[in-house]
């Protein structure tokens, strides 16, 4: 029986974490990179912290012919390699007892029957109660077949939930199509579209920073903020994902999802509560308010040969699997406007790219300068505007740049940082985004997942930008690997009398 049952006086005041119902997780794409690098290390971390349901099992489904024993050995290796915790054999063995593997082509009826058999076996042996969490860690082309199969075979026993990985579509039309397929068989409450950025502690801390502190919200608007810069930089290249990246580019890989979600969280109005619909209602309002940028407000780029951390790296067109005349963009910078009362005329400068000098995701809120600093002789030298800098990764935390007097005679002012470092104040390692998201899906909490209307709005903006790009052929490559992007990106912000944040 449920310990959360109404009227149970014993649960009051228990500081126990909410525990998911007994369930089985079915991972489609069980031999893929995502499963090895993210899903299983996350499951292991949850198991180690006793956050998984007591009655739990995993069915791995993939085309690779192998036995359950071989699959378990492979996942064990992956956990040893990628988990954030030391390996504990007892914890792993408990998890492995509930693991089953089914080798099948997703379209085969016979294979799907074996998945059902494996689940029935888990229900009987592990007490998973018919509850199912399906994780679609598969390429988009396998998506429709699996969803239809699941829909047609859905049981009335227990709950059913679907985690859907990005990319969710290729454009607005294809996203509509995917939503139609999903919604033929599942309700919106059963669909969990992952944008793993939302599972990051620092992204969630943006909400805490804004809405749990009285000092920020009154100045979080066009009256006090000069502009906002959001950077999602990666130093790595495409890491063997040429087939995907040639189709997607940075606009579909990062801009459409992570970057626009960061814009939404930065600009959204306070939700009335922290429930899934309240938060997502506010985010979608921001996405609807985004002004479609004109061609001069978007810059795209592609990296050429260059140096990262002293190592020479090839240009994008020299990467294996990439066309030698590829026009796929690996960099985007844009000036966005949120057309609403709070943000009218306040630019959001956003940029994302590969082969930038370092991995960095930051949101920088640049406040307006002090209206009349009485230190005339130093103004413009050491004193810069206040910047609230949210470090999403790495060095997770928040810092505030303020002007301070340099000790000694005179009145020299210099910018200094007041830092809050996550790892400093809370001495626990931050959970990986996938840990939080998988657990939330088991609990049925969709707050940190994207809703269909959010996805729709995101694609609407991307489609408009891509349509404009089709009118001309870019002159690529236009930035060397290891630089902060093409000259056009600097020009984009310089035209407004501003500059990208110093690194």
């Amino acid at each position, binding site marked *: *029986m449920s*310990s959360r*049952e109404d009227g*149970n*006086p*014993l*649960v*009051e*005041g*228990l*500081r*126990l974490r909410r525990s998911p119902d007994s369930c089985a997780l079915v991972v489609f794409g069980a031999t893929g990179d995502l499963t090895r690098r993210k899903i299983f290390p996350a499951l292991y971390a949850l198991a180690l912290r*006793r956050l998984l349901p*007591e009655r739990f099992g995993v069915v791995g489904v993939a085309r690779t012919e192998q036995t359950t024993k071989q699959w378990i050995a492979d996942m064990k290796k992956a956990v040893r390699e990628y988990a954030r915790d030391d390996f504990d054999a007892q914890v792993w063995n408990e998890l492995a007892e509930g693991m089953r593997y089914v080798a099948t082509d997703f379209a085969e009826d016979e294979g799907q029957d074996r998945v059902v058999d494996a689940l029935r076996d888990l229900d009987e042996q592990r007490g998973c109660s018919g509850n199912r969490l399906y994780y679609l860690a598969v390429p988009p082309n396998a998506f429709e077949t699996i969803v239809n199969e699941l829909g047609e075979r859905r049981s009335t026993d227990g709950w059913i939930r679907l985690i859907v990985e990005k990319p969710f579509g290729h454009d607005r039309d294809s996203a509509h199509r995917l939503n139609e397929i999903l919604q033929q068989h599942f309700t919106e409450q059963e669909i969990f579209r992952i944008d793993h950025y939302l599972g990051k502690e620092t992204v969630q801390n943006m909400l805490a920073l804004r809405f749990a502190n009285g000092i920020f919200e009154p100045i979080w608007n066009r009256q006090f903020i000069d502009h906002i810069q959001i950077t999602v930089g990666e130093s790595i290249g495409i890491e063997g994902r040429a087939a995907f990246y040639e189709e997607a580019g940075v606009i579909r890989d990062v801009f459409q999802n992570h970057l626009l979600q960061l814009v939404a969280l930065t600009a959204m109005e306070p939700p009335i509560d922290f429930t899934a619909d309240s938060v997502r209602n506010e985010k979608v309002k921001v996405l609807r308010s985004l002004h479609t940028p004109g061609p001069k407000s978007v810059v795209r780029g592609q990296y050429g040969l260059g140096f990262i951390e002293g190592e020479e790296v090839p240009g994008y067109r020299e990467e294996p699997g990439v066309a030698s005349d590829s026009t796929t963009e690996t960099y985007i910078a844009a000036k966005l406007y949120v057309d609403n009362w709070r943000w009218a005329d306040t630019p959001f400068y956003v940029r994302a790219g590969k082969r930038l000098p370092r991995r960095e995701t930051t949101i920088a809120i640049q406040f307006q300068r002090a209206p009349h600093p009485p230190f005339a002789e130093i103004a413009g030298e050491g004193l810069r505007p206040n910047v609230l800098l949210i470090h999403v990764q*790495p*060095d997770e935390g928040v810092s505030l740049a303020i002007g301070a007097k340099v000790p000694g005679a005179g009145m020299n002012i210099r910018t200094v940082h007041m*830092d*809050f*470092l996550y*790892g*400093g*104040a*809370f*001495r*626990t*390692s931050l959970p990986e985004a996938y840990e939080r998201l998988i657990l939330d899906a088991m609990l049925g909490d969709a707050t940190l997942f994207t809703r269909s209307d959010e996805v729709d709005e995101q694609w609407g903006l991307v489609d408009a930008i891509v349509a404009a790009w089709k009118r001309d052929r870019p002159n690529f490559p236009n930035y060397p690997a290891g630089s902060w992007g093409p000259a056009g990106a600097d020009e984009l912000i310089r035209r407004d009398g501003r500059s990208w944040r110093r690194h």
Partner: protein
Amino acid sequence: MASVVAQVERRLAELRVHHAEGTRTSVMTHVAWAPPQWAAAARRTLAGLDELHPSRTILLFPDARKADRIGVDVELRCFTIPGSSREVCSEVIELRLGGDRTRVPGSIVEPLLITDLPTFCRWRGLPPWGKPELEQLVDVCDRLVVDSSEWRGLPGAYTQLAALFDRIAVSDIAWGRSLGWRGRLASLWPDVKSVKTLSVTGPRADALLLAGWLRSRLTRPVKLSHRSAPELERVAVDGEPVPAPRGPALDASDLLSAELDVFGRDPIYEAAVSAAR
């Protein structure tokens, strides 16, 4: 001769110069009162704790038999931040109180508290009810953390503890230790509604609090049958064993750490204490 506070501040300033790269971060002031027989245990617990809760820790070692003076040691404990090359440093101020100084800890501690952050006082052993040292620390701290399994004279001592509830929020490590078992008992609802006897093998405090909790939540008498053991090993209701909580039991540092994450009064605990007597 500089005052104790001035000595501490000067020493901290010197240490900060030597650890200029370390970030000074505090989420609380942690005061620990540890009479001689508890000094070693207090140091051990702190060693496992300050990496989890960056704080200014004020360790008070009272010994009324020693000379009427205050001995001071100050150190910075620096830890590398996971995933970063940066360090975070916590301040540990050790004050050895001798003679009559053991009776006036409030005036020594108060100027050393970090402004605007909560102050937790871990009191080792049985508090001297009504004595100035306890009264003063109750007045300057926000939360008193005890472990009633360290006490003799149970359940009588719970009466004196309950008298503090309106003055300071109280945490009891014995109560924290029973959390998993309380969760298990709660999961037996509604069958557990009619329980007549609770059998507990474990520390007496833990058993008394579990029984008090059941009585106060169910608003009816529950008889306690207790067998002593150093750890909470077994719980049964009306002879039926309750499944043990998952995972290993927490150690002393983790238990204290969990209590340091709690703010405000705990009415469920307070009711359990009242019903444990």
